[in-house]
Every structure is written in C-alpha cells, then in structure tokens.
C-alpha cells in the first residue's frame, strides 16, 4: 500500500452556465490587454492523499467517496479525477 495524490476537479456540466468564469473573462481579463483569451471556466479542486494498492484503485476509491458523500451534485456538476504518485 502506498500513498497516492488524487485531484478531484468539480466543474459545471457542459452547457450549464458559469457566471463566475464569464465575469472573470469579460470584466477582468478582456478589459486588459489579453485579447487572445476566449474562455474561462471556474472549478473547485480537492486534493486527496489516499493509501491504496495502485493508482487505479486510488482513483476509483476517490470516485466512490465523491459519489457517496455528494461531494459534487451530479445534477449540475461533473468531476474529473486524476491520480498521481504522491
């Protein structure tokens, strides 16, 4: 058993609006000189450190936790789960 670092990124489903990202883009970034930026999406990231047998099981265990504890609401959000060696 080893420690893995698992990143959970929670963001709105595609097609669901992201007012915060839009405000940061329009009222901050595009008001400056950075006209080549076309989109900003906000997300929340949780970093888990978990002890598991391998990367795959670390990833699936964290997914299980996220689903079970409603760490994200599947009605509006999607999660991306990436595991790394700690």
């Amino acid at each position, binding site marked *: 058993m080893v420690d893995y670092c698992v990143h959970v990124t929670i963001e*709105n489903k595609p*097609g*669901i*609006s*992201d*007012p915060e990202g839009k*405000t940061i883009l*329009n*009222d901050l970034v595009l008001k400056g000189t950075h006209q080549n930026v076309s989109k900003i999406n906000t997300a929340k990231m949780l970093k888990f450190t978990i002890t598991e047998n391998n990367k795959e099981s670390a990833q699936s265990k964290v997914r299980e936790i996220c689903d079970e504890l*409603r760490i994200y*609401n599947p*009605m*509006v959000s999607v999660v991306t789960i990436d595991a790394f060696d700690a």
Partner: protein
Amino acid sequence: MNLESHELEELKSKIGREPTSTELQIVAAEWSEHCSYKSSKKHLKMLPMDGPLVIKEKGYDSGVLDVGDGYVITAHIESHNHPSAVEPYGGAATGVGGVIRDILSAGTRPIALLDGLRFGDIEKDQHAKWLFKNAVTGIADYGNCLGIPTVGGEVEFDECYTNYAMVDVAAIGFGKKENLIKNHAKKGDLVVLLGGATGRDGIGGSQFASDSLESEDRSAVQIPDPFIEKLIIEAILEARNEKLIHAMKDLGGGGLSCAVSETADSLDIGIEMDVDKVHTRESDMHSDEIMISESQERMLIVTDSEKLIKLQDICKKFRIDCSVIGHVTFDNKMHVKKSGKTIANISTDIVANATLLDLPSKKPIYLENIENTKSFPLLSDYSEIMLILLASPNIASKIWVYGQYDHEVGIRTVVKPGYDASVLRLDNGKFLSIKIDGNPKQCYINPREGAIGCFEEACRNVVCTGAKPIGMLDHLQFGNPKDPEIFWTFLESLKGLTDFAKDFEIPCIGGKVSLYNETPKGSIKPTPVIGVLGLIDKTPLRIQKINSGDCLIMIGNTKDELGGSEYSEYIHKFIGGKCPVVDFSDSKKNMNAVLEIIKTELIKSAHDCSKGGLAVAVSELCMTNLIGCTVSLENVPGDKLDNDKILFSESHSRYLVTFEKKNLQNLEELLKKHNVSFKTIGEFGGESIQFTADSKPILDLSVDKAQKTWLNSLKEMVMHA
C-alpha cells in the same frame, strides 16, 4: 414536454389544423399546471382581491397597494420546491431571483425578502440536512449579492418533506405611484429581450414543476447569477425613470412562450418574433428549446424605436445584452419565425388560456378520527420537557439562518428578524410590517382551520408591531390535485382563507398555487403559507428591554387544543387531536385591543403565542431579555385545563404583553373597554423561567441554560452529528 392526448385534440380543434412542433412546445409549456393554474383557477376567484388600497393594472405579476403620499408597495410570493429538492443551492437562489423580477416588472424597487423553508427531519436525515444547509446558502448568496435584505421568514421540519424541499420566497417592492409601469402597447412597438443569454438550463422546468418528483434524472436545473440580476434591476429602474418602458414581464416558468403569449393576451395585442434574434449561450440551440428555455435573469420589455436607443445605452452602461426579438401586431396572434419562416402562428387567447378543470374532491378518510383527543401522562415537573422543546429544530432560534442573510442593507429595517414580524421604514414616514406563516401540522389535521390559523398567526405577528393588516399573500402548496382527497384539502384551505379574508376585510393581493408536491413516500401535508402586510401610520412599537418588576398580561383564551402542537408531535410523537380553531369575533376584538394599547405607549413589548404554546412564548421573552419570570397557570385566561394543555396548547388569538407595573391599572381599563379576555399572569425578575400551579412549581429552568440551548441547538444540528 407533452400535452395529454385530450389536450392535443382540444388544441387541434381550436386551431383547426395540426399544430407545428414549436406550437406544441409553446402550448405544452403554457398549459402546464405551473403556468395555467388549470386545476385551481376556477376556485381561486372566491378570494376577495379588492380593497380601498389595492391598485389593479393589467399584466401585473405582483400585488400593488397604495400606502399614501404618492407611494406604493408591491408584493408577491413564489416557490421553487421541485428545483430546490434536486439542487438546493441553485433552486433556492433562482427562486429568490424569480420573485424579485415580478416586483421589478411593476416598476418598483425590491426592498425586502422573506423566505419559508421546509425540509425533512434534520435530526435523523443527512439528506434533509444537506438540503437545508445548501438552500440557506443559496438564498444568502443571492439576496446578499443583490443588496435586498432578507428580513424574515420561517423554517420548519417535518417527516412529510423527507427527500423534498419547500422553498417559498416573498418579495416586497416600493416605489412612487407615478412610476408604476402602465402596461400598454401600440402597433409597431418593439419587443425586447433583456438580460442573461438563453441557454439549455431549465428546459421544461414548468412542466417539471407540475410533475411529481419521481426520479432525479432531470435536467431542469437553473444556475443562479445574482450579479446579472443586480445589473438588470439597476438598468430597468433607470429605464423606468426615463419612461422607456411601455410594458414589461419577467421570464419565469415556460420561458419566452409564456412571457410572450401572456403579455400579448393581457394587452390584447399580437406579437411577431424571430427566434434567431434571441441572444443564446450556445450556438446550436433548436428553436423549440429557445422558446421554452427557463434560463434565469431575463426580462421582456415592450418599447418603441425612439426609446429603444436610450434603452440600449442603459444596457451598454450596465454591460447587459438586449435583443429586439419582435414587434407588436394587432392580430392577437403569437407569431414565431425562424430565419423569416413561420414556425408557430397561433391565437394568444388559445395559448394563454388553458381550459380550466373542475376536479372532483372527496373528504379524505384519514380525517374521520384524526381529531379524537389523546391524553398524555401528567407530570409534576415539565422542566426537562421544556428544555427538549427549546432545543427542538422547529422551536430553536433560527439565528443560524437569518444571521447569514444581510437583513440591514437598504437601511429600512427597524424591527430585525427574530421578533414577531419585521418592520421597514418607508419614505413617507410610515412603516410596513411583514410576516409569513405556515403550519402543516395543523393543516394536516384540519385543512380549513389550519389554514385560517396560519392567516391569523401572520396577522397576530404584524399586530404585535403596531400594524394594521392591509393585505395578504397566499401560497397554496399541496400534492397531486387529481387525487380527490388531496383536492378536497386544497378546497377546504382555500375556503377557510376566503372566509377569514372577507370577515377581516384583508384583500388577497397576490398568490401562487404549487401542486404535485409529492415525495417518494406520497403527498406532502397541506402546506399553505400566508404572508400578511401591515401598515403603521405613525410609530411602530419600539420594543423595550424588560426589567425586574415588570408585569406580563395574557390576552386571549387558552383552549383544549393540543392537535398539531409541537408538544404532541415532537414530545409524544402523536399526530392528531383537536386542531386549534380561530374564533373570528374574539380574534378581531383581541387584535383591536392590542393595536390600541400599543398606540397608548403603555407597554414594552407584545408577543404572539404560537408554536410551543404559552411555555415557549414566555421563555422567548425571558431568553431575549435575559431575565426570569414567574407565571401562575391558574391565572391563564380560558377554561380550567390540565397543566400540559395550558403550557403547550397552541390556541390562536393569544398575545403576551409586557409593561411597567405602574401602567397596570390603565391597561386593565383599556382592555376591559375592549371586552377581551385577559389577566395578569406573571411578573419578571430573578434568573429562572418558572411556572406554578396551585402555588407549586411545575417548571423551573435557568434562563441562561435555556437561552444557550435555544440559541445554539440548530447550528449544532447542522454543523455536527
């Protein structure tokens, strides 16, 4: 989204041809229960809606009251139950947004919010806790950001809401009468869509709200954007000041379909529009999706081409989008085009007026024996029970909730949350008092008397601030109306409210019906929520701190009415017993007496006696003033009853009045003149809440301990365990 087969046949016969797919979508949205009120509308007409202060204008989504000196108050109530049950944060927040735009539509600035929240048992149910916590945050994040104070509300927990959420929001607006939007339109006027982009969120929401919540697999979730709502408010009010708006409507349930058809129908005009002109969030949206999308933070405005330029300048200033989507015609048709090609062309009269139903009703079987009383074992000491009640989720202080709401912004809030009703100062020197109340426990046992009780309780709260009730908002929330037993409870509640409103001459100025509130375990209890607005011409009762030696008078009779009480349901887990009944004549006498003694400035505070009965009401006075009190039960007005009934019965029309002893004689004379039932029942002092019966103590609780328990209990329930 689908029409029922008989509705489809009806539509075909009305238009004399096959409807197009867009027409089908438009009509299905507009004929849904949520938009058409088809089950309830026939009956709602019984409520009195006129009064000396009521201002009526076609197309208003909110009630308007004349408060004198050229000023008006607007008020409306809405719920967002289904969306909040699946996504409590966004559902509750967008619920706030919707009702605010109804206030804005009349041309008034929103100045206050109140919300009624109901969930399952948060002590046992993690999901109920999650719903509660997120709904509160959603409301806080939305209202706070807009700078509209949330000044009051109520929170209740009952197992009938397991896996469900009831989120009711009432909004109050204020403005000059001359600035009210006089909804009108001329041929050639332009139809403008202003605000957020139209996206796929909330597709089919109104239909969703009209279905029972069977599965979570729904996409009708709306994302709140309070920042754009704030910009819309400021832009619209600036446009109103510049007189740029001929007519205005908020986009709510049913999206463009409902806003366009209802505007056209109420103004007796036609509207021709092109879906390609609508600013959308995604480029690949189908025209039907554009017509029924329930994306939030959008307003429909009718203006003319000259004013449009100024309106566009204002929108530019606030960086909000505005698109001219169509124009006014005189054929009374809703004509929708895409790239110049007609995709819907149908009489607005047909779209906006679904055939009203006359659903069957039948007295529910469960009601036959429910009011049979049950006696509970009498105790010699109720201190422990009292402490349990003060910690119980329905009675514990709601400071954890209202402490998260900005209730001061706008600098109008004279009486803050946590008291009977909230009081706002108005620009003409008068004061507005507001409260919303519900009581599903009593409404379940007796739908008629329970509903009247909610109405009277809201009146009592407003009266306690020195205000005379001038208007009522009703929000009638029930299960599936096609079940005759449920429909019967709806009708009974409505009849009760009508009788009270007529007798007390309090017009219903706005309301809402929300049906199909069902959980996996069945229907919710009947949940009418009543809002009452009161007006104070001169000064509101300024609550003064109670000192040692001050006295306590109780006005109104305590009766053998433990049905639906917290004592019966929370302590003894018994649903049933005699539901409290309002005696109209006593109720009126008591209200008038309390209003007069407030005017004479003889008293320090007036407090309504309701949830948890006399014992809780006295404790609340002690806990908020950090002082003890001794009450003799034999002095409590009413028939001779068992001690538990005197302590915990939730009989209506009762008030607790505190005052300096030297005013006793004057007060007694005044109350006698009003011919009300009253008696001095106690005196303040010491450090404990004490009740005695025949000179023997039967309840003795330290104020300090009671206060800590009462203040912290709800927060602990949410944060821990």
